[in-house]
């Protein structure tokens, strides 16, 4: 009986499929991904892909434009109190969720409060750090009260996607919010969730009621490929129209295809690769937080770090590891962050002679003639441990290159990839390492990167180098309060200069994001932009199918 029923349903399905197929084919954009979202619940999601999907399906107060600036999305107006502690936002009216319910200021306040109350929302929660209260006095007004004046509330709100209260209120208490799978993903963005198969695909349909204009597309399908090779191949064969994370090694191959265009540029949310030095001082070791501070003493010497910076052939690293798809890195804030990036800093030019000279001058000499320098007091050779997360396939290659050039200045490396948790365990605030190759993901606002080397973050383990500079700390505090944009930019630039001078990190490169799309099915690609990314939905809204 059951079988029969099943058969009937099957037939119906087949018929309906045929039925729709005979009509005008829908305009479907297929995007290939090597990694799907880890969760549709943005509160607990980690991966960029989850944010991308959220960007397309939700609205938030601000949106990130392709030029790296922030503009109103849901918001229409904002008033800041003179002390900078109270923000009053006005939002669009008549915005509807995908299920037809109206989005009001209540939903906004609910969302902000939800995130504020949930410490188990690991990433989002930090955006509500200074929030005291969020209220919605009426349907279009949201009042946020802060405990401290901050200059960058836009960047705090840009990733706080507005969740529908009528759905989430049942899942807001305790663990429920973190465990809610949110498969319907009801939002108010330009696309709505149609179908989700974890690790297979996500099908989004266009939201005809979207306030920011309607796309010419009918559907966007994100297909999750489990290998980069499959991704590249599928683009070549036309199974997909766009890939956003093109492997560097495939760029030449794809460029050779006349129907494919490769676009590269600084990404909106750049991945920042760091060479991290352990300079935590054993005298001020955060022992209460498990600190061991076993770093090599030579690395606490600025001269040594600068010499190593001189001995780092950044261009070669970019050439070989990124196949040229990147630019040399300077300081903590990447060029992708636009005006926040200090382009005036003159980098340490690769020069082994300078590096050798500096080390000689500082007293690090190779006294026993084994090719490795010793400490000035002769106590120990300059042999550094170097670790990186083993899931990273470029790090070991970079380590090889560093080992080679640094070897020429009498520095030896003991290299070892480690599982990221093991790496975390030796990292900070334990400081049981010498050098690590790791990285950060940048926010549009420089604040999240700038906070890293502050003294306050030593015990929390956020400050991985153990760097401590009162002047830097002071500037950090000041920029965090500075409401004058131009002045803040200046301070941020100065902080970068300090970091570049003190070299707690060497930033080898800023990698380009590489996107490739087929030109034979859709037009309207924003391919003259130097920036790429799906974070701005308008990039998709501009696409038109070729008949």
């Amino acid at each position, binding site marked *: 009986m059951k079988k029969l029923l099943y058969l009937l349903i099957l037939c119906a399905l087949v018929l309906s499929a045929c039925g729709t197929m005979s009509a005008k084919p829908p305009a479907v954009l297929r995007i290939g991904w090597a990694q799907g979202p880890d969760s549709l619940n943005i509160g607990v999601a980690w991966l960029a892909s989850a944010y991308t999907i959220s960007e397309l399906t939700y609205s938030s107060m601000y949106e990130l434009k392709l030029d790296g600036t922030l503009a109103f999305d849901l918001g229409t107006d904002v008033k800041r109190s003179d002390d900078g502690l109270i923000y009053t936002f006005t939002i669009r009216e008549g915005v509807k969720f995908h299920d037809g319910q109206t989005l009001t200021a209540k939903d906004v306040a609910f969302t902000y409060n939800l995130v504020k109350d949930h*410490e*188990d929302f690991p990433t989002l929660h930090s955006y509500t750090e200074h929030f005291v209260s969020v209220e919605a006095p009426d349907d279009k007004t949201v009042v946020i009260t802060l405990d401290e004046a901050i200059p960058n509330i836009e960047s705090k709100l840009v990733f706080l996607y507005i969740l529908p209260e009528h759905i989430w209120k049942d899942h807001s208490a305790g663990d429920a919010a973190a465990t809610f799978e949110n498969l319907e993903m009801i939002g108010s963005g330009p696309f709505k969730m149609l179908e989700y198969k974890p690790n297979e695909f996500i099908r989004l349909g266009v939201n005809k009621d979207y306030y920011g204009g309607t796309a010419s597309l009918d559907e966007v399908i994100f297909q999750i490929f489990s290998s980069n090779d499959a991704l590249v191949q599928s683009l070549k064969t036309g199974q997909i129209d766009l890939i956003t994370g093109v492997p560097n090694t495939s760029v030449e191959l794809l460029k050779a295809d006349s129907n494919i265009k490769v676009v590269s540029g600084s990404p909106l949310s750049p991945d920042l690769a760091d060479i991290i030095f352990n300079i935590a001082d054993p005298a001020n070791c955060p022992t209460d937080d498990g600190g061991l501070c076993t770093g090599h003493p030579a690395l606490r010497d600025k001269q040594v770090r600068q010499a190593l910076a001189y001995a780092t052939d950044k261009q070669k690293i970019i050439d070989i590891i990124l196949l040229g798809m990147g630019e040399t890195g300077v300081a903590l804030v990447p060029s992708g962050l636009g005006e926040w990036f200090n382009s005036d800093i003159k980098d340490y030019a690769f020069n082994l002679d300078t590096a050798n000279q500096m080390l000689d001058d500082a007293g690090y000499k190779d006294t026993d003639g084994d090719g490795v320098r010793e400490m000035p007091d002769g106590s120990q050779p300059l042999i550094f441990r170097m670790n990186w997360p083993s899931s990273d396939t470029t790090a070991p290659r970079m380590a090889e290159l560093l080992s080679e050039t640094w070897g020429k200045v009498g520095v030896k490396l003991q290299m070892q990839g480690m*599982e990221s948790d093991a790496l975390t365990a030796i990292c900070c605030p334990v400081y049981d390492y010498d050098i690590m190759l790791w990285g950060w993901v940048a926010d549009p606002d420089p604040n999240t990167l700038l906070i890293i080397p502050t003294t306050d973050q030593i015990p929390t383990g956020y400050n991985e180098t153990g760097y401590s500079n009162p002047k830097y700390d002071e500037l950090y505090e000041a920029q965090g309060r500075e409401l004058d944009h131009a002045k803040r930019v200046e301070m941020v630039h100065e902080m970068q200069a300090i970091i570049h001078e003190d070299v707690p990190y060497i930033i080898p490169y800023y990698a380009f994001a590489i996107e490739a799309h087929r030109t034979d099915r859709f037009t309207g690609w924003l391919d003259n932009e130097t920036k790429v990314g799906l974070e701005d939905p308008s990039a998709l809204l501009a696409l038109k199918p070729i008949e």
Partner: protein
Amino acid sequence: MNRWHLLQKKALWSLFTIAFVIVLNFFLFRVLPGDPARAGIKDPRLTPETIEALRTRFGLDKPVINCFKTINPLVLGACDVNPLETQFVIYVKNLFLGDLGVSYYYNRPVEDILKERLWNTILLIGLGQILAILIGMAYGIFAAWKARTVIDYGALITGLIAWSLPTFWLGIILLFWGSSHGFPISGKSTPGMSSYPLMMQIGDLAKHLFLPTVTYTIVYMAEYMLIMRSSLLDVLSEDYILTAKAKGLSVFQILKDHALKNGMLPLVTVIAINLGYTVGGVIQIESVFSWPGLGGALYEAVNRTDFPMLQGAFLLIAVSVVVANFIADLTYSYLDPRVQTG
């Protein structure tokens, strides 16, 4: 000892092995370097409160077992803790309720994820094993029958070479070939296929299944062929084959009625013993072909330090192997009357 006794004994033994695996599985992740708590948290930029909240959420705030707060690093704790409040007891209890914890990565219950993946793996292993056994056996029998001929030497050489192929490499090579011959090179289905008619979905699945299955089949077929060949060579020199020949039976009759079953006995043992090893091959195949199965889950979990997932996948794999082993033992006792009634 009769068969029922044997079955009881084997079943009991399998249960004991599973219990051992459960204990091993729990403590392995707490004894080895690497902190499950830190792994679940991933990112050092979190505030201490957030870390605490996450620890609580994943149940890592409780003592591991009585007297031990953590095992690595060794931190002794109170011994008068309610045993029901220790991680181990909770873990075991949850296991019995079918709860393998929440994946750090997917934020979904591990059992839900593994359930989907278990079937994919069973599909791949099942099909691969069946093909490998059938082809390997047929080939092995043929080679043994034609012993000391070109056919036999050919079989032996190709068998040894195939046996020496690293599974993942064979997979890569086939993938390389397949990618230029229109075969899909990753996953289980073309994304979006589920909106197409069933027949197309099956065709699509078959296309995706082709290369991984071929890889699996080649690797294990070679082994089964070699075993079948050598075991049949032994059988064929037994006196009862001479008896059968003296009775006037034809070669085909002798192979079918006297050699096959006897020759299969060592094969069944090897299949049983090799199941644990087979799983290793599945990890390789699934990671090369990105097949969404248990082996792939294990591989991904390693890369993502998703401890609950790793633990769950390992447990499921180990238990499946124990169960499969049990089945193989039963098969053996069914095939060999000396075990049933001896």
